[in-house]
């Protein structure tokens, strides 16, 4: 069924914990003899340069300007625990090639799961159909673009056998139950994948990569005085197996259990406009939704973003600088190259309050006459790339976190959010606060939960009036950004900052103040 054509961020399940865990010796599967990022598709599937040239020729046989091939082989597995037992193993294999032909800003796209020449040529013919003139003549000479390595992994450890994950998940369960007698249920799991890709473009790029991904999570239910509350946490990203150690397990369990048990004291804040302090870290999802999506260049190229006419203009206070960055080590949104072959890089969106630029793929970069920024991303070979965020964050300010809270006076403090959504054209957004606190007379007081905050992205940006010096990046691996039916892993970050006013959707009407 057709997805609703808007953007949603969905925070996946999260966390759990265990103590004094001794990691098992990792069983190594030697799927590959060579380094993971070169020659994989040639060795395993016989995809050589001459075949790629043939496919590109077919994709450009009706006069497209540009074509690319995106080969993918992804193996994923999730191990799940429920009622004290690691009793579920779910796996999936993705294999295929997506072939794109671009004519001006038009896209033809075909894909096949069958890597036979006949099927791939047929997919290329589908892509070619976007154009309707004479074939483009091309002489291809491929090069590997220079890029950083933002998720170095040991080639021999890139496959994590299911058996090696099992004691980690068991440990999380034990840790959560040990953390509080109120815990009555624990769901925990370890999801991981290895995505091997090869990108071949008609403008001469040939790049292979092996991309790890995954997260460890716990979701707990606590019971007290007949009431139940739930919370979760996860940690992950593009990491080695060694990341999932005692420290990680302990942090997951501690956060999940603390978050759940705190909710027994939580109240619903009054409804209406009030100052909102965004705590550091995960609240950066608000920056991602409320502001970042509107700066994706495809929305601006089509004149449908509220930021379409604001390049070079003041959009925030001078202390605000916002960056979308592919180069943070091991974060979920980090990429060595994007899915069009452009090297990952750090892109300044807002500098000292001025909107400096957008997030570009090759199509929008050509439209604006600028270089691509490495934001052309896609969910998998079944989807074509489009401008997407990577790790989006705002730099810290000069204030201390306590000073930011004090400056709010009376309002709310947001610690954890989920289910954000934005309307690009209007800039309106909404976020669900799963954990926070009331701010009364400049001090944090009662916990709050299960309320929405609503606002308008550009208005919120101008309403950020104070930022602390405590920028944190979200370290989770379960966050997926959705756009046009495609999900891609992202991360985000924020320092503690004060938004002058947002609408809070509580269940009590605010007492009118004279």
């Amino acid at each position, binding site marked *: 069924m*057709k997805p609703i054509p808007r953007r949603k961020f969905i925070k996946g399940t999260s966390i759990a914990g265990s103590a004094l865990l001794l990691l098992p010796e990792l069983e190594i599967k030697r799927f590959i003899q060579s380094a993971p990022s070169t020659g994989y598709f040639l060795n395993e599937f016989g995809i050589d340069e001459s075949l790629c040239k043939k496919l590109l020729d077919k994709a450009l046989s009706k006069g497209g300007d540009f074509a690319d091939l995106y080969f993918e082989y992804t193996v994923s597995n999730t191990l799940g625990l429920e009622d004290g037992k690691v009793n579920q193993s779910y796996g999936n294999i993705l294999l295929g090639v997506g072939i794109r032909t671009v004519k001006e*800003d038009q896209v033809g796209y075909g894909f096949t799961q069958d890597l036979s020449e006949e099927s791939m040529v047929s997919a290329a013919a589908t892509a070619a159909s976007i154009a309707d003139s004479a074939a483009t003549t091309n002489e291809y000479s491929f090069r590997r673009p220079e890029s950083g390595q933002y998720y170095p992994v040991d080639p021999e450890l890139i496959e994590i056998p299911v058996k090696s994950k099992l004691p980690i998940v068991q440990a999380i369960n034990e840790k959560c139950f040990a953390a509080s007698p109120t815990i009555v249920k624990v769901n925990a799991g370890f999801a991981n994948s290895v995505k091997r890709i090869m990108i071949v473009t008609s403008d001469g790029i040939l790049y292979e990569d092996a991309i790890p991904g995954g997260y460890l999570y716990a979701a707990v239910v606590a019971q007290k005085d007949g009431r139940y509350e739930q919370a979760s946490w996860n940690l992950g990203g593009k990491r080695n197996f060694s990341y999932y150690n005692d420290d990680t397990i302990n942090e997951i369990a501690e956060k999940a259990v603390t978050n759940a048990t705190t909710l027994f004291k939580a109240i619903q804040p009054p409804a209406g406009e009030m100052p909102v302090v965004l705590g550091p870290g995960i609240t950066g999802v608000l920056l991602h939704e409320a502001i970042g999506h509107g700066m994706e260049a495809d929305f601006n190229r089509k004149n449908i973003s509220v930021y379409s006419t604001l390049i070079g203009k003041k959009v925030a206070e001078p202390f605000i600088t916002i960056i979308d960055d592919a180069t943070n080590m091991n974060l979920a949104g980090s990429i060595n190259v994007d899915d069009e072959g452009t090297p990952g890089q750090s892109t300044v969106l807002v500098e000292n309050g001025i909107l400096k630029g957008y997030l570009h793929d090759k199509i929008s970069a050509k439209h604006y006459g600028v270089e691509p920024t490495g934001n052309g991303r896609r969910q998998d070979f079944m989807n*074509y790339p489009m401008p997407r965020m990577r790790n989006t964050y705002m730099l810290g300010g000069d204030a201390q976190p306590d000073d930011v809270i004090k400056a709010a006076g009376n309002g709310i403090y947001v610690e954890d959010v989920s289910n954000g959504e934005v309307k690009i054209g209007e800039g309106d*957004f909404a976020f669900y606060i799963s954990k926070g606190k009331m701010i009364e007379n400049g001090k944090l007081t009662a916990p709050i939960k299960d309320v929405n905050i609503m606002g308008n992205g550009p208005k919120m940006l101008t309403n950020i009036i104070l930022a602390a010096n405590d920028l944190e990046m979200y370290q989770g691996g379960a966050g997926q950004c959705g756009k046009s039916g495609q999900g891609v892993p992202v991360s985000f970050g924020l320092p503690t900052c004060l938004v002058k006013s947002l609408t809070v959707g509580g269940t009590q009407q605010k007492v009118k103040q004279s």
Partner: protein
Amino acid sequence: MNKINKQQQNFNELADWVIDRTLKSGANGCKVNLSKTRFVDIIYRERRPDVIKEATTQSLSLEVFVNNRYASQSTPDLRKTTLESFINDVIDNAKIVEEDPFRTLPDPEYYKGQTNENLLLNDPSYGQHTPEERHDIVKKVEDACLKNGGDKVISVEAEEYDQHYEEYVKTSNGFEGSTESTEFWAGAEMTAQDEGDRRPNGYNYMGSRYFGDLPSLNDIGRIAAERTLDLMGGNKIPSETLPVIIESRNVATIGNGFLNALAGANIQQKRSFLADKRGQKVASDVFTVIDDPFIPKAFGSKYYDGDGFPARRRELITKGTINEFLIGWYYSRKLECEPTSSSVSNLIIPPGHRSVDEIIKELGRCILITDFIGGNSNSTTGDFSIGIIGKLYDKGQFVQSVAEMNIADNHLNFWNKLVEAANDPWIYSSARLPSLVFEDVIVAGV
């Protein structure tokens, strides 16, 4: 059962081979699901193709049971040469996980009783439609949207999407099911110029199982434009307690928050605010919810559920009283109760007799909610909070569009405020629900 075609016969033969290999490799039981999807997606912008996308996908999903140990895995590679190692991998994974006495295939007795009715899910004309016909659909929708959007239009994207889906499911203990279905969708998304930098974006998508049942293409484009223009001037108003009408196409968003708490997994895992409410009245008399899998050509109609249980019509909630939870085989064993079915088909709330327009005229000051944004529903506590977009009326007269506003409540309170269902079920979804009227809702704004 649905008539088996040649593709499904091929699937049948492959499924038999997979089951045989899986059992011989050490599994006690297994379930194979084979599927194939063909789709075409065409998007127009500025009166020319913006995206043309077309492909066929296939998948084999294998669930194995090895002495109460369970693993599931899927692959697109259906070659027997590669399936050999695939089957061994799945069995190896099952052997690694811990034993769970509740993990078995269902008792075959529960497979009995699948309907012989033809639910008319498959349009036999699929495959006869030419690329030109598809492009023509998109052009007509785009034309209608542009025409009705007038000089406010910044951008229109019109789209046609169609798919043909075939599925064959077989278990080692006697279940066999197949489905062949088609879908045709058309729609448009429009962005308009409002005051300042504000650019409201609205959309309308409508679909059908049969090509000939697609609504008027002119209407599809016109409604997209009208819904976008309705958003012009949207702004928040002071927080207020007043009646709201949730438009039919959006009722499922808020209703799902309630229905999720009926799920067996949530009940057994203590994540359901309804766990102890079966047989109790928790909502107003207007709240009757029927799960009907047998509506011909409907999007949620089906012959069997995910466990292989035959689809059946059931009344989940009657006049606010919960009759039945959504419990599949696995959680029925954990909960020590009879299974029902863990999934729903077509959801129905009996429609009323009045139109939304008629209701608005009598409500005084009220908000018609035309879309939701963000938000969440907590299945454990029943609390929800969600952003709203809509139109404010007073004594039947339109006052202004509203945006950046919110409603929040607990489901156990909220559904008792339901006072009327309109006569307009949204049939372009498996949630065939009418617009609903709620009294005394706190709408948060300024």
